[in-house]
């Protein structure tokens, strides 16, 4: 086969790959391209809806939590951790593919292992973020009263800020539970939630520090739908990438590639993994940065 390498001018004349790559890699590339259109369609739909709204939540307000940091306002912190995890796992994947080129079984296993760890770490971060967004409730103006809601696919607590008059009126309309929670959030640990619930409504209302209270209206519902839909779809890709990498790891361990004489399979898994990273770059841009 080395003899044909000399006639490089006739790539297209048949009998060989015009791109000098095996069909599997070619297919993987075109699959990724078509997958790029799936993600592209999601993100472009998101853009279209965003442009059709008068108001869109500021991501820095929405994504400002960090595990273990309580209520500290840390915009972009957690997502930058997630981004770096994916970049690093991409680097380890490059090293695994390179080790495969050198038929270095030990190195392949090592770097694949680290890539899998990175993938699982990313998924765990995502799980925490979703959990935090869904269960972490926020005082929101809904139907003229204050309700505590999390970020779900049907409601969005990140609308416009409510002005002082509306807020005072809304507080009067709200249930004791809601007001008690407001007071509890503001005054920390001075009284337990149960104790607060026992107080009369008027007393509770007096305890609310309205000047410090920033309540928002409901925001665009599509925010949650797109966020969960697209990061979920991306997370699903990460998950399948991790599964593929685990399969690769086991195959490498069992000498399947060594017997075959080449580790080209790792290369294809690598392409998929980098694509996952590539998509994250754009998800990061669309949801967290702009």
């Amino acid at each position, binding site marked *: 086969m080395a003899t044909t390498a000399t006639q490089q001018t006739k790539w297209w004349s048949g009998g060989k790959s015009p*791109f000098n790559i095996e069909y599997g890699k070619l297919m993987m590339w075109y699959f990724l391209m078509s997958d790029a259109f799936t993600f592209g369609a999601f993100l472009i739909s998101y853009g279209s809806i965003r442009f059709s709204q*008068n108001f869109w939540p500021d991501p820095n307000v929405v994504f400002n939590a960090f595990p273990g940091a309580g209520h500290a306002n840390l915009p972009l912190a957690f997502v930058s951790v997630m981004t770096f995890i994916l*970049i690093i796992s991409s680097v380890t994947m490059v090293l695994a593919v390179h080790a495969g080129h050198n038929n270095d079984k030990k190195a392949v296993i090592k770097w694949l292992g680290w890539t899998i760890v990175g993938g699982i770490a990313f998924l765990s971060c995502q799980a925490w973020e979703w959990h935090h967004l869904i269960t972490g409730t926020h005082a929101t103006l809904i139907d003229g009263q204050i309700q505590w809601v999390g970020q779900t696919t049907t409601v969005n607590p990140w609308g416009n800020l409510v002005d002082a008059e509306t807020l005072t009126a809304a507080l009067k309309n709200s249930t004791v539970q809601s007001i008690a929670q407001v007071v509890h959030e503001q005054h920390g640990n001075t009284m337990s939630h149960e104790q607060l619930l026992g107080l009369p409504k008027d007393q509770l209302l007096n305890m609310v520090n309205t000047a410090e209270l920033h309540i928002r209206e409901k925001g665009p519902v599509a925010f949650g739908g797109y966020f969960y839909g697209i990061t979920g779809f991306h997370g699903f890709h990460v998950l399948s990438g991790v599964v593929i990498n685990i399969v690769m790891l086991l195959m490498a361990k069992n000498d399947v590639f060594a017997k075959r004489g*080449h580790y080209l399979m790792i290369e294809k898994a690598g392409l998929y993994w980098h694509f996952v990273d*590539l998509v994250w770059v754009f998800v990061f841009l669309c949801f967290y940065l702009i």
Partner: protein
Amino acid sequence: MEHQSASPEVTFTHHTSDADFRKKVIRTTVILSVITVIELIIGLIIYNIHKGPEPSAFLVLAFKGVVCILTIAKAYYIVAVFMHLGDEIRNMIMTIVVPLLLFIWFIAAFIYDGNSYKNLRNDYDKHFKESTMPKGHHKAEEHKVEEPKPGKQ
């Protein structure tokens, strides 16, 4: 086995030396990290502009544009170096890159129509406009209707 060849379709494989490769990977990793850090800084700048007393829409837009360009640069490095597309034959690169040009019209038309939908709703659905327009922007909004038209509801 220095020439790994999976099949007769493939006549040779390109090989880079370990040292070169290591240098390239480290360089790319550094570039990606630096770009990401710059993006994060810009993100925080935008956040602070928003928090400020008179947020400048133009400045925010300009920074967002910069972030978009930086993201495309990141995508370029991931695809060209990590996915080794830069090492492939030119024609192969073209078959990947050229179809992606479809995204230009795809994005432009969708965004343009999304924006148009907003304007239509603001014109014909007063409730939508009043309930979603950020406070204080009512007068500043340049899109005005001369004659009041019957609303949707």
